[in-house]
């Protein structure tokens, strides 16, 4: 249930929406790239028979 934001509802919700969107974007981007690189490293290491890092 949203609190009563009165006449400033639009700026407050815009600020929260934009900020949470940006946070979500950097988190998802970080996780996506991390997963992709981890998979790539595993493939290369398996091909070369190494598992150091």
């Amino acid at each position, binding site marked *: 249930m949203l609190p009563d934001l009165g006449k*400033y*509802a639009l700026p407050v919700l815009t600020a*929260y929406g934009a900020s949470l969107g*940006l946070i979500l974007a950097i988190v998802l981007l970080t996780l996506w790239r*991390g997963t992709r690189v981890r998979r790539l490293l595993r493939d290369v290491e398996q091909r070369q028979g190494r598992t150091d*890092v």
Partner: protein
Amino acid sequence: MSIWEYANPKKFMETSAIALPWAAAATAACLVAGLVWGFFFTPDDYKQGSTVKIIYLHVPAALMAINAWLMMLAASLIWLVRRHHVSALAAKAAGPVGLTFTLIALVTGAVWGQPMWGTWWAWDPRLTSFLILALFYLGYIALWQAVENPDTAADLTSVLCIVGSVFAVLSRYAVNFWNQGLHQGATLSLDKEENISDVFYFPLLLCIGGFVLMFLTLVLLRTRTEIRVRRVQALLARERMA
């Protein structure tokens, strides 16, 4: 035990693997608690109405935008002086996170400024220095991408980081240097006895803690990824030479 042990990628990977789940859980707890408390359970300000709720995003994001750059400065100096690769990669990892915080501060500031000042933007000392800081972040990220040799990229970005630090510091103290413009002075200061009313202060502290922990978590995650990228590059180079 010395702090320089963590400059060893293997040691860093081991330690960060243990720290990451705790950091992520603490981030989620602080952010959710702080934002829910601030958004749902704090009153409107007598002057600013419900727009005061933007403080829980704007102040922590602005604080971390500046401090992320200062962390990058410290890591860059360590790279330049001691040539520890993990520190250069940590600085690289922090760039996009710092840019995100800078954008949040700029967007929330504009959205807050419109109803309070009557304008989205003004060429005010703090706003302008913050915009320049955002451009420095973009330049820093672009420079890492543009230079192929990783050590050269680390050298060049470290120098850029030192130059950009002027604007990071300026954006913090601009309102003190030039006593003009629309932006108010610092919301929180160690010099003052009381900063803002306790009803806003405690959820704000929780949100600041959440942003600090989010920065730490994301930088740890991204540094681990950068270390793995280096490892992939090294293995592929060895494969090509064989």
